[in-house]
């Protein structure tokens, strides 16, 4: 009696399981196919284009907003909301002819006043954490409804790049009359998608904007879902819960390659993974210590072992694909003997103890990289304690002003050059005026000669001269070593093979605005 009951139970169980496995593959037809779910690696922060919100947020904003111009995956600048432009002889006045017949998501028509309201917001709004990129703009003059003139304080060589960057996204003037919180919660742009819903800390959903001026995408809806765990992303893609993932390990890629249901896409990145030193703390205020630590790390082993070859050893604070990278050989090699020698000179013959903070999951293999560096530094007597934080609190922690209880000694970040050229990084990461929390100089680095060259290169429109200045700046920064550059990431994305037209930008986010369905 007992036995037959057990058999019956087993049969019921087997049947119910068979039922489960069958249901996963169906229902993928028609309507559902045009709605996709994209797994992003960290929390989606503010959706205000003028607020830094890291790559997951930028990915979403890229579908909602458009700038006057836009950059492609090769960092070439193309017309977008502006059809053409010209610059005055003194280089201070830029005149843009605007596209006509463009509608905002709130139904308003795109006009010159919107450009003025958007860009001048940087000058008055203290909540704009990207002002450091745009505060050289003195004013925006409306010549007529479809012509604007942007006047800058000094000549700005990278103005077009900056306008093409996410922070240049144009918002409707009417929508900017609201409070900052409201702007971030329901942003109004001209992009092919409009915001549908945000679940804080979890997801953001955008839907197709029917009045979009351009060709747009085949997709009717994109849901950006935060999934911090790499293995969970992979499982979700396999079960069909998500359609697009990034940050995939080498082991997992092998499972998708050769499977016709999925496309594996690789692309270069200009994001340089590095450890930053808080130079207001001892012993990191000592250049010899920072150089010693740079010599103590075997980057090739990290790229090979930790990344599984999914990256390249850094050769400077700039990635090789970033405009302005100099091939002068400023990079530190792996030389533990030299590291020990420098530590001795610095007065730390037996090394020292310190703490390094890291995020977990935001960047590909972030925590593992920090662990590997920690293990290698132990060889020269530097013993690090690793503290792990979630992304949102980690950003706050690292971006604390140095005199405001900043406890960080060393941290892990990956900085991309947002505009694809060196001044984006040099100006916002290494100058005194951009010490955190104003900009992202979270090392609190300062060098007068570097500052001088930065000002020169910022306004230098002669390419040869500018490149020479960048090369000199790279040399100075590498010698001062506020960073320990580690490697440049390689981008990889895996997605449903019927999707096409997705571009992986070198600033490490996928662009869905032209995504088609085969």
């Amino acid at each position, binding site marked *: 009696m007992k036995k037959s009951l057990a058999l019956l139970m087993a049969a019921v169980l087997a049947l119910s399981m068979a039922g489960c496995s069958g249901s996963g593959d169906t229902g993928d037809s028609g309507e559902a196919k045009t709605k996709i779910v994209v797994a992003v690696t960290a929390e989606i922060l503010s959706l205000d284009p003028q607020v830094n919100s890291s790559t997951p947020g930028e990915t979403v904003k890229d579908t909602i907003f458009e700038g006057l111009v836009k950059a492609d995956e090769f960092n070439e600048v193309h017309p977008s909301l502006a059809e053409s432009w010209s610059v005055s002889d003194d280089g201070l006045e830029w005149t843009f002819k605007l596209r006509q017949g463009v509608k905002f998501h709130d139904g308003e028509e795109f006009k010159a006043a919107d450009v003025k309201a958007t860009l001048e917001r940087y000058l008055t709004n203290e909540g704009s954490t990207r002002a450091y990129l745009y505060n050289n703009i003195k004013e925006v003059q409306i010549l007529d409804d479809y012509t604007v003139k942007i006047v800058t304080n000094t000549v700005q060589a990278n103005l077009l790049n900056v306008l093409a960057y996410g922070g240049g996204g144009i918002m409707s003037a009417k929508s900017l009359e609201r409070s900052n919180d409201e702007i971030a919660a329901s942003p109004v742009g001209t992009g092919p998608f409009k915001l549908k819903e945000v679940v804080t800390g979890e997801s953001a959903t955008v839907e197709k904007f029917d009045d979009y001026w351009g060709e747009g995408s085949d997709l009717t809806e994109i849901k950006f879902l935060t999934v911090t765990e790499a*293995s969970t992303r992979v499982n979700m893609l396999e079960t069909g819960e998500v359609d697009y993932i990034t940050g995939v390990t080498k082991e997992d890629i092998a499972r998708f390659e050769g499977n016709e249901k999925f496309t594996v896409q690789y692309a270069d990145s200009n994001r340089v993974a590095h450890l930053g030193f808080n130079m207001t703390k001892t012993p990191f205020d000592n250049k010899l210590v920072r150089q010693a630590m740079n010599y103590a790390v075997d980057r090739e082993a990290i790229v090979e*072992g930790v990344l599984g070859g999914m990256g390249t050893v850094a050769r400077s604070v700039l990635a090789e694909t970033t405009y302005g990278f100099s091939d002068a050989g400023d990079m530190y090699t792996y030389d533990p003997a030299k590291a020990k020698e420098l530590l001795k000179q610095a007065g730390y013959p037996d090394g020292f103890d310190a703490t390094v903070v890291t995020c977990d999951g935001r960047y590909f293999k972030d925590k593992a990289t920090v*662990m590997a560096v920690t293990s290698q530094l132990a060889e020269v007597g530097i013993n690090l304690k690793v503290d792990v934080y979630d992304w949102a609190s980690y950003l706050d922690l690292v971006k604390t002003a140095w005199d405001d209880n900043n406890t960080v000694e060393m941290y892990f970040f990956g900085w991309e050059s947002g505009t694809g050229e060196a001044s984006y990084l040099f100006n916002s990461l290494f100058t005194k005026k951009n010490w955190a929390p104003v900009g992202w100089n979270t090392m609190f680095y300062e060098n007068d000669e570097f500052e001088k060259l930065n000002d020169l290169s910022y306004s230098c429109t002669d390419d040869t001269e500018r490149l020479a200045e960048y090369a000199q700046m790279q040399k100075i920064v590498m010698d001062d070593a506020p960073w320990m550059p580690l490697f440049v990431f390689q981008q990889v994305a895996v997605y449903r093979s019927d999707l096409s037209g997705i571009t992986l930008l070198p600033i490490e986010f996928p662009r869905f605005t032209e995504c088609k369905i085969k």
Partner: protein
Amino acid sequence: MKFLKRLLSNKLAVLGIFFILIFLLASLFAPLIATQDYSEMDLYNVLALPSAEHLMGTDEMGRDIFSGIIYGARTSVLIGVSVLLFGGLVGTAIGILAGFFEGKLDMVLMRIIDTLMAFPSILLAMFMIAIIGTGLKGAIVAVSIATVPRFARIVRSSVLKTKKNEYVDACRVLGQSNMKILFRHILPNGMAPIIVQATLTFSEAILIISGLGFLGLGADPMSAEWGAMLSNARAYLMTKPHIAIFPGIAIAITVLGFNLLGDGLRDTLDVKEY
């Protein structure tokens, strides 16, 4: 001796003792047993399968998993002992005070304990960590606090029951001090349930700290801690399951060992459930 004989006749308890012995020996002689230092990373040999050189293979950082497990036993002993010391002592003290003196003190203490008991221990521990901060020390303090309520309850009821015995009244009549009665007579005679609870707490502490380590709230990711090892291994569950299996087995066997011993002790000492 009679007690030991009875305990050893319980086959499951013997199995428990066997597991615990392995665990204790591993932690005691860790440097001798481990084939290398766990912090040593061979980045050119990551995720290797078990071999003669690496008995359990290497993890995603090229660390020897076998050595990690051996040193992890040490971490677990440290966790178990510290939690027992902190949580056990505080819990016992509260239980004694409440049980022996009763009255208002008892009521106030027990209501606090009731409040704490309303939360599952892992939740309480996570809450404590939010206040104290992450890391092994924080986790140990958090788990210690989380184990206080159960200890307090058990000790209290044990004291309440024991003090009703006639020999306690006799001591009182003889004019012995409260202290003497408590520590000479009541506590030794009410020890059985405390011992059983201690064994169970030991395994629970290991389990909770592993859980916290898995959630990234426990030990430093560099340290040899089973929960953290399991957490790091999770990304490779589908492709390289061996790096998750071994720490998993280690946790399971150790916790099982202490639970079996605890059950055996309970049967042998004839402790009623509280």
